[in-house]
């Protein structure tokens, strides 16, 4: 038994080491891409930093100080070094370190994407199960239509339609922004997630207002997520339902409910978790578009604004943050899959 568990430990260690190597390579790849994009920018970085009205002498000195005369690989290495020290440069527009800007706006995006993934998983998984258990019936067909529509519709359009119907026409939900203006600044910022902060402060009115503002952007993100998760759930379930153990369980006289809950679902669990994790990454991307529609003061809006100001440091900083989370989620789901799924042993 002891030998077996140490063997198992070795196996896990091997997987982790391998994945760490892949992670490192992917991360360097991401840095290379952002580095190259930063370099091809038509705007001269020196002029971006000190403005066009300086003497040639100052220009040359700044250029030297910024390391722009070094060989390109030295520049790349110092770029990696800076990023590792969370130095993303200074935003051309806000005149603040990009890292601070991002730390300020990111919680809003995180909150939005988290609500989106919650909605996505809570609707998507049951929907997919329903479709798989009723394969080929009208229920399956209906779920197919609903899910297909979910990921064919652009997320910003879903947001606009929701705003038109539930805000403009019915007045049921809060409008753009995270809070109504008179609730602004009432709760102390602890996590930056308004729902949690409001709950911690016991300000339930603020909580309700924040929730009202979250519903529509959360739904427009969550629907797409539910569509994808539902579709995947259906195919995972169908794969399992084909297996012999299901027939055995049925022959044994287990109820269909028991078969599904005790056997089929646990066997899909790993795949489901990885799907949800990957979808979460996609939602961070989708949030960029959703935030524009809902005037949501998050990373997406920060990046879009920076783009129009040609604020390259800010855009690349945001790209790096989202890219890194993406890579980590990929890694997480991969590791989970390899460790938990017996078939990869």
């Amino acid at each position, binding site marked *: 038994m002891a030998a077996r568990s140490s063997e198992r430990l070795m196996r896990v260690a091997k997987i982790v080491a391998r994945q760490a190597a892949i992670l490192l390579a992917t991360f360097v790849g991401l840095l290379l891409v952002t580095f190259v*994009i930063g370099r091809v920018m*038509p705007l001269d970085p020196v002029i971006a930093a000190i403005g066009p009205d300086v003497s040639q002498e100052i220009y040359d000195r700044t250029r030297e100080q910024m390391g722009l005369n070094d060989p390109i690989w030295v520049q790349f290495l110092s770029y990696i070094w800076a990023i590792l020290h969370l130095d993303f440069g200074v935003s051309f527009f806000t005149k603040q370190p990009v890292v601070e800007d991002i730390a300020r706006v990111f919680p809003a995006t995180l909150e939005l994407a988290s609500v989106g993934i919650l909605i996505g998983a809570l609707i998507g998984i049951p929907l997919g199960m329903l479709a798989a258990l009723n394969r080929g019936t009208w229920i399956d067909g209906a779920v197919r239509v609903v899910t297909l529509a979910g990921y064919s519709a*652009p997320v910003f*359009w879903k947001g606009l339609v929701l705003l038109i119907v539930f805000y403009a026409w019915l007045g049921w939900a809060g409008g753009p922004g995270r809070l109504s203006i008179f609730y602004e600044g009432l709760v102390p910022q602890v996590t930056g997630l308004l729902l949690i902060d409001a709950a911690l402060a016991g300000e339930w009115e603020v909580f309700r207002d924040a929730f009202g503002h979250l519903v529509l952007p959360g739904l427009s993100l969550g629907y797409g997520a539910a569509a994808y998760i539902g579709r995947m759930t259906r195919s995972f379930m169908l794969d399992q339902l084909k297996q012999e153990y299901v027939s055995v369980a049925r022959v044994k006289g287990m109820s269909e409910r028991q078969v599904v809950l005790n056997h089929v679902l646990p066997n899909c669990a790993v795949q489901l978790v990885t799907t949800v994790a990957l979808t979460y990454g*996609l939602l961070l*991307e989708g949030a*960029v578009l959703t935030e524009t529609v809902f005037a949501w003061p998050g990373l997406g809006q920060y990046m879009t604004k920076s*783009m129009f100001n040609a604020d390259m440091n800010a*855009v690349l900083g945001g*790209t790096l943050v989202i890219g890194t989370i993406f890579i980590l989620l990929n890694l997480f789901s991969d590791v989970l899959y390899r460790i938990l799924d017996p078939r990869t042993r």
Partner: protein
Amino acid sequence: MSEATATTLWGRIRSDVPASSREARLTRLYFGWRRLARSSAALAGLAIIALLLLLAIFAPFIAPFDPYAQELSAQLRPPSTINLFGTDEFGRDVFSRVIYGSRYTLYIVVLVAVIAAPIGLIIGAASGFLGGWVDTVFMRLTDIALAFPRLILALAFVTAFGPGLNNAILAIAVTGWPPYVRIARAETLSIRKSDYIAAIQLMGASRLRIILFHIIPLCFPSLLVRATLDMAGVILIAAGLGFLGLGAQPPSAEWGVMLSNGKDYLLSGWWVATFPGIAIFLVSMGFNLLGDGLRDVLDPRQED
């Protein structure tokens, strides 16, 4: 082709007894079509895309108004029999603009496919056929590229190169090649060991020749399916870039741009944003439906 041979040709194709390699190809096409036609969803997708093509080609004949003609006395008119989808803030006819928008969509989709698919095809085929360290390096690179968030990278590209339709297309294509590599490589691996490749090798064909003329053509069907499925996503990303103001620029009648204009008139004119959105939605859905159907036809095992 004369009438008499045509009927016999048709008979041979239908009964699956081709008399030449060309007829064999036609026969395959015919049976593929029959399988595709069994799925009403795939046919619906095909119909939507056919409609998109027709709209794009015949836009000037279908659109009742000039999509760029401003009519300041007719701002934000609700849908009516004259302006089917209403008018926008400059009094332009939204219906005509949606019709002309199909041209942008088609342009984007075709260009992205024409740029991204060949890159992926060549890398994938070379990787699969040559094997060894070439394969390892290419596949690692592809894995790395696959792990990147696509829309965000496209955003960063467009910011660097400047907004515009062509830069947006380039950005989408540059971030879109990895899936094609995977497919082309998988196909190549299954072809590589076959007897006819060995025969060509014995006849002295160079590796380049084998890859270009004997492997790549066989990768086309699965690549086509992948491209079709991919187009749904491409349309959404392109519309997203247009919506953010980084793709096609106003006053272009591109659907994403129109949506972006419309979002400022949600209260006074819901139709301005709604109809271009429906257009994006339908076309994206069409590609999804057709792609699903094609996949079932070409590879019935791969069902997900």
